[in-house]
């Protein structure tokens, strides 16, 4: 029984570009998260338009990274899981001094406020990452092995 039995899947146009050396930009970040798999459907977050390059904001002054993501349906019960997967993957790729904020795209989920709070509570995230069962699901979907 899926929350969203009919997700909209978009075709991916291969992008080739050259990253200028030095600063990270939103393309780099997007490359890290685009292939995370949705926990319900056999598609990536990029294909389901859950994440996109334009929803990534880097503020080099405050060392902050703000990522907005759009759940496929406004009542999606796996939204906090998707947010957690994005965070875990980024934490592994980025230097730890970068402050990561993961937020739901405004107006796209009924429990936007509650989930945003949970996703950005460092202690909750840390405890979740010590939950074996949960991390099994996370690791499976963020893993690169199925490229």
């Amino acid at each position: 029984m899926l929350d969203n039995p009919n997700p909209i899947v978009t075709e991916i146009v291969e992008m080739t570009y050259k990253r200028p050396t030095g600063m990270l930009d939103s393309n780099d970040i997007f490359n890290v998260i685009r292939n995370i798999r949705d926990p319900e459907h056999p598609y990536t977050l990029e294909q389901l338009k859950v994440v996109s390059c334009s929803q990534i904001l880097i503020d080099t002054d405050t060392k902050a990274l703000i990522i907005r993501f759009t759940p496929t349906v406004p009542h999606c019960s796996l939204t906090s899981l998707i947010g957690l997967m994005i965070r875990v993957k980024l934490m592994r790729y980025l230097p730890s001094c970068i402050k990561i904020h993961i937020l739901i795209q405004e107006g796209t989920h009924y429990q936007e406020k509650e989930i945003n709070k949970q996703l950005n509570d460092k202690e909750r995230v840390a405890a979740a990452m010590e939950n074996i069962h949960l991390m099994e699901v996370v690791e499976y979907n963020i893993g690169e092995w199925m490229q």
Partner: protein
Amino acid sequence: MEFSGTVKITDLNDFLRPSEKCSVHNSMIKTSSKNTAKVSLSDCLACSGCITSAESVLLETHSLATLQEKLLQNEIITISISQQSLLSISDRFSMSFDDTFNKLSQILKKKGVNQVIDMCHARDIVLECCYQEFMIKYQSGNVPILSSECPGWLCYALKKGDSKLVNLMSTQKTPMLVQKNIRNIIGYHVVVMPCYDKKLESFMEQGVELVLTTTELMEICQGFELEECNEVQNNFYSTTKIKTSSMGYAEYIFTRAVKDIYGEDIEIEPKSTRRRDVYEIEFRDLKFCIASGFQNIQNIIRDLKTKKSNYSYIEIMACPMGCLNGGGQLRTTREKIIELESSTRNYYKTSTLNTELPSIERELKLVQGNNLKW
């Protein structure tokens, strides 16, 4: 809706809904009209993660509104009222037990209820069965035995997943679950109980269609002042075994056991221990415990684990001071409960203790059953 502290409405894991630890989750998810997955309560009571959905299930089905509907539909409705609920109401209105029952009965019948009955007989039978269960286990050295009447405690013990603990628990049904058969009730059976946790219990077994709390019963009776009804009706229930706030299990079993083992008739005076709301009764080698309150559940479990407990029987209740202080009772204080307990105990003492229950053999079959399957 105030459940006892043991029944927790929480998310086991706050990133996945329902709990990812729930083994029945994948096979038994039912969808509601909103197309969101919900595990229904009857699938799994013991898992605290799944109970999150249960609250909404309960609100829909176990409410006064349901009873009002049934009353309008002209169904045959029987309401059984527990002793604790009656005590709570009689204390509030300073009326005698009998008067309270009579007046409630009149009011409810005016509203369309067909029959209003007490639960003394059902409890008598269950107590007797529990006593016999105790003797069998005690004589083969399978002690301690833990009571399982309190749904808050039972739910917690099951949730804990400790099979050693669960194996110590009594397998007798509760009075609420045997009432329908014992009193030959037909039609829609409503039971009035001192707490909300009993609503969860009724989902698991046959015999009760709706559980209302004492406070909910008083809501139905709103508009009828209890003092108004002056007609005197017959006393149609036995008052031989009105017990105290505790469900009376430890006291009953202890009295019978002492008589059987040592041949003595004794009066029980529970002794307090260093823990508040934990009492002991002792006679020679026989030692029982009566404990209430969630913190004492913790302490008892710990004592059992560390083998510090030397009781043969432990009566456990989730609400501090027992059912008289249940979550669904009319507001009261510790002092009032203590008063009430001593007055009912005195009442009990002056009545004849009738253990001759002629239909016990037959009825034992009906009540016997393992209510631990949930």
